[in-house]
């Protein structure tokens, strides 16, 4: 059995760079969607390519943009190999995807601002709406299950989720606008 030696993360510039950029890259991948193993492979390949090409020596914003571009290419290549299509047709267009991510991605390009704003907005939700969101996003994306749990109709769940998402969108946009 062989275990690689442990390294001090702060001491290795590559390790520190990967630690800094992998969060934004992973978030971008989750946005593109797919099986976890598929996304992990892409993340690994993209980070490895970045280090091998010396992208880690470039400014952070440029490196993050390069990573997103590479991830998008790897994502599309992976889908082609699997002979599948992206969940949304628009996801094939790198420019549109980059624009959407840039709009909510904040100045850092990692999406941290969006997540912080979203976390604050979710915490402000009414208990019932929070339960519906929890059930839908954490447990199962099935309205009939949520309807049974909350004791309302499926249509009721649909309406509640739509309104809650609208509220969250407005809240997040306000927060991000205020912070910028």
């Amino acid at each position: 059995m062989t275990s690689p030696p442990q390294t001090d993360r702060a001491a290795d510039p590559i390790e520190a760079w990967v630690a800094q950029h992998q969060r934004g890259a992973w978030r971008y991948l989750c946005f593109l969607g797919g099986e976890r193993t598929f996304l992990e492979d892409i993340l690994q390949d993209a980070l490895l390519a970045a280090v091998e090409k010396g992208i880690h020596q470039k400014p952070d914003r440029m490196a993050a943009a390069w990573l997103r571009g590479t991830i998008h290419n790897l994502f599309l290549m992976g889908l082609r190999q699997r002979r599948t299509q992206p969940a949304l047709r628009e996801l094939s267009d790198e420019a549109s995807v980059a624009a959407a991510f840039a709009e909510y991605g904040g100045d850092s390009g990692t999406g941290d601002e969006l997540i912080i704003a979203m976390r604050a907005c979710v915490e402000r939700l009414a208990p019932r709406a929070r339960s519906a969101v929890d059930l839908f996003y954490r447990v199962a994306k099935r309205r009939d299950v949520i309807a049974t749990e909350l004791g309302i109709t499926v249509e009721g769940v649909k309406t509640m989720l739509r309104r809650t998402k609208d509220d969250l969108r407005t809240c997040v946009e306000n927060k991000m606008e205020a912070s910028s």
Partner: protein
Amino acid sequence: MSNPALKERLLDAAITEVVQGADMPDLATVIARATASERRRAVEHCERAQQRASFWNRGRMQLAALLLGSIALVVGIWAFTQPPEDKASAGQPHEDRVHDPKRVVPRDKEELLQMLEQVVSMQARGCSSTLHTSGQPPVKLDYDIGMGGFVPVEGEARDIVLKRLKRHGGRKQQPKRRDFAPGIRLVMTLKNGRTLHCLIQFNRTMRVFADKDINIRGDLKLGNVLGKFCGLSSLPSQVALGYVTGSTDGHHIDTGEPMYPSDMPVLRCYNSNDDFIRERIERFTKLHTLDMSHSARTLTEDAFVIAKWRPEIRKVIAGLRTFGARGGPLADANAQDVLGLMPKLEELDLANCPQLAEGTLRAILQLAQLQRLDLSGCTGIPPEYLVLLKDHATLAVIKLSPKGLTEGQRSSFERSLGDRLHWQTEK
């Protein structure tokens, strides 16, 4: 203004991350380690290039070229004038060739161990001319070395292997001579917890035996390989997966036999569903660890319940000692049925399953051999029921999350569960 559908998707992804937690892979150490040797090599290459440049500048290249040319000429004339027997002997394996694991079959244990060291170091480095591992070195690497049983099998040993293949209904996949070359069976545990079984044969490139030979020389990605076993379409039923060996004590191997999926003791099927339990699991007769975390919710419908009427499935599930179902593949209504089928369970991971309730806890209390339990994030189980875990005789580690509990409830837990309690906070 960006596309509304994409904005919607981005919001969905953000809500999911906030509600579920990020749970992102940490590749920093892996990437740094995988590229470290490459970086060192690049530095060394530069230094050598500088030395060569200075050598050229001193004007000695002409002299060196003249000398080399003379030597080559002499050697060429000498080789041409040798009798044919000597030419033949020059083609015999040479000690130096041992260092190319792609071409040379090891002749004894020492050679084999040398190769093993090379392979393992290449593996740890993450990339090499032989094993490209996409830069993801394993965090744990177990290996078996095949010697005696793997040399071209004749006579009794071959009969044993053939019998075993036939017993598995593998008449069509009778082993060819090439399948019995010396090799190493690797069981790699990757950074993200997944494991990969594969075989390296020294006289060829790395291969994994599945429903067809998958040449993973170019890409050692577990998702592609293990997916073949856990997935729906191409689980190998009768074909050797690798080699199991009689004993690894001191690397002495007496016999080698093909390994079947049925020999796999650990399965991590992150994206599985009902069909895996219904149609596949019965083949893994030696299974003791099954991790179905983050699987589809459809697991709850009738996947395990069917085991009640299928003895072969029930037998496999009853032999499980570790079961994982993080992220909600089990529903409370089914948890009792499912856990009731696993009386030998020693470790149970049901973290982040907020839909589980008191029914699950009742089932857990019935598991007489349970030692480790993770219920962190299971906010659906009422605290007054959780306290009942103190009466479980064998439970040594209980993981809970403090979320949703009052200060009084937390201290009550800490009092009643003592050292066994481990608080898990969300990342």
